[in-house]
């Protein structure tokens, strides 16, 4: 009789130990999984995200001379001017927030809403906008890609 209870006790004890061990390991795994996923860097961009244009965006840039690219929540107009330089300005017109476009034939940035015109540095040429367009730095990479780095100040 006592053998039975002590045997039962032993199995119960080892079962509890097993339960504790197994659940602890499982829990630790559930904690480590997000950490490990977190640590692996993403393929496309660096920590802050100098944004790299996708292949479709590059193709559109070639075809239309400009493309609108999302950059950490904002929209940036990337254009290719007559001298094949790549420039980038904020795509949101400073008047009422419409999206501007690049008119290659007139070498100007134009907002269709109220006929505002900006030069390629974002300065207002005519129309109602009160402020120039913020500029971004765009660099060509060796592999042909284009990188948009953070915002630049107007007088740089």
């Amino acid at each position: 009789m006592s053998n039975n209870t002590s045997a039962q006790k032993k199995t119960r004890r080892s079962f509890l130990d097993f339960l504790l061990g197994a659940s602890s390991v499982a829990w630790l795994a559930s904690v480590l999984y997000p950490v490990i996923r977190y640590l692996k860097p993403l393929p496309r961009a660096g920590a802050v995200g100098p944004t790299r244009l996708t292949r479709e965006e590059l193709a559109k840039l070639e075809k239309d001379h400009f493309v609108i690219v999302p950059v950490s929540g904002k929209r940036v107009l990337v254009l290719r001017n007559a001298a094949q330089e790549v420039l980038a300005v904020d795509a949101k017109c400073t008047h009422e927030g419409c999206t501007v476009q690049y008119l290659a034939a007139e070498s100007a940035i134009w907002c269709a809403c109220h006929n505002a015109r900006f030069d390629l540095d974002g300065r207002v040429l005519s129309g109602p906008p009160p402020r120039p367009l913020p500029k971004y730095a765009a660099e060509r990479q060796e592999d042909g890609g284009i990188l948009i780095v953070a915002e630049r100040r107007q007088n740089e």
Partner: protein
Amino acid sequence: MKTFSLIVYQLVCIAALAIAAADQPAAIAPKLAGLLAAQGKEGKPVISPEQRDYFEGLNDHIKGLLNNAAETEIITRPDHLSSILALGLRPQKMEVFLQDNCVLCHTDPEVQKPETLFSITAVSNTSPAHLNLHDLVDDVHFRRGLSCAGCHGGDPASDKLEHSFVKEWPGTGRDKNRGWVLSFCARCHSDSTLMNQFNPALPTDQLAKYKNSPHGKLLLETKDPRAPDCVSCHGVHGIRGAKNPLSKIYPKRVHETCGACHANPATMAGLTLPDGSLIPTNQLAEYRASVHGRALLERGDLGAPTCNNCHGNHAAMPVGLSSVSQSCGLCHAGNASLFDGSKHKQAFEAHKWPQCGQCHGHHGIAKTRDSMLAAGPEALCTKCHQQYAKDHPECNASAAYFHTSITQMDQAWNGFGVTAEQLAMKGLDVDAIQDKLNELADSLKQSRSHIHSFSKNGFERVALPGEKAVQSISSLIQEAKAEYRLRQLGLVASIALIGLVMLSLYLKLRRLEG
């Protein structure tokens, strides 16, 4: 040694005194000093501490001019001096002021009557508005050295009381027939050689334009005393440039200046349009409530148009029939060019309708609403078409299509916008959704603009990206929601595991202690 150092010491003292003496400011002559120290009623000095400070801060040249004015008894009263100092003028203006005997005399309360005294505030209720001294010294002519004599004639350096006006200034009947004002101002302002000496950028064609305008014809041909002349809009003594917020022609004040006559039914009584109907006087009220008026007056958007942007300044006239879309099209270029390429242009011309104004109004242009397209009470298309274009029933279908397409996109934009915010509050990444929402907004704007082409094909081309965006946003939202559910699932799983660990730990504890 001792005597040597004594001599050096004395030389140093003398040198210091000499330097100190050289630095002494110019002495104030007794008469000026007397005015500065004068006391008024109750023993308080007439010249206030601020005015005293201002006086002390003036340079020697200006102080010398003040001295002069006091000595030659042009300034004899302390309150006269006080009003001059209270202006706080910069040295450049002060120099003009103090060398101009006209101004000095006409600001002296002792010798002037209320009808001829320039003062800072109204001396009495009968003091006319054009005698405000602040306005006078702010005047753009005064600043350039063209003070009283420049218009009224005479010699500012002379202290004799003679008024010899320029020949354009008629001796009698000045108030009755105001046509003389035009040639009076134009003797300088239409002379480009003269204007080049002051501001080469200013135009000199104002008189020619004015003569062609209804205002000009009213004054010069009909000789109507109500007609405006230069002074009516620009003022007389306080003329300021259009960029000065105090100017009567500053963009935010133009509507008041024009409205002073055009919104007053008494002033406008009997004046008619070319077609014989009376000129309305409700434009100002309509403008204030319009989208342009509110942009300018409530939001302060200086890019918004006011009266002169559409009607012109000196050649102000009703916007000509064929040129309405030209004038609106200065800003709304896209819509205007679409309209001009559409079949509506010829139709409107045939009916002699003012293109943009026919649907949008003239002065009371309200924010456009999508309901203007539908078949409801605000619908514009169907009303006209039922009357004038019964033989084009396909247009009704187009209008309905425009309306459906746009309202669907608009509802999607609003609804998705709210959803995106809610998702962001939950900590989800809504960047892709926001980007697509921007694309949808762009397409919506372009679609609304392309209504002016009145062509289904053109409209479809710009509406299509919007519809695609709507699909993308839908699926992106579903993905985000799925991501959130996944997070919740992960949480539940973690809690379950933690619970399990806690349970086994508790049991172990009980076993160890029990």
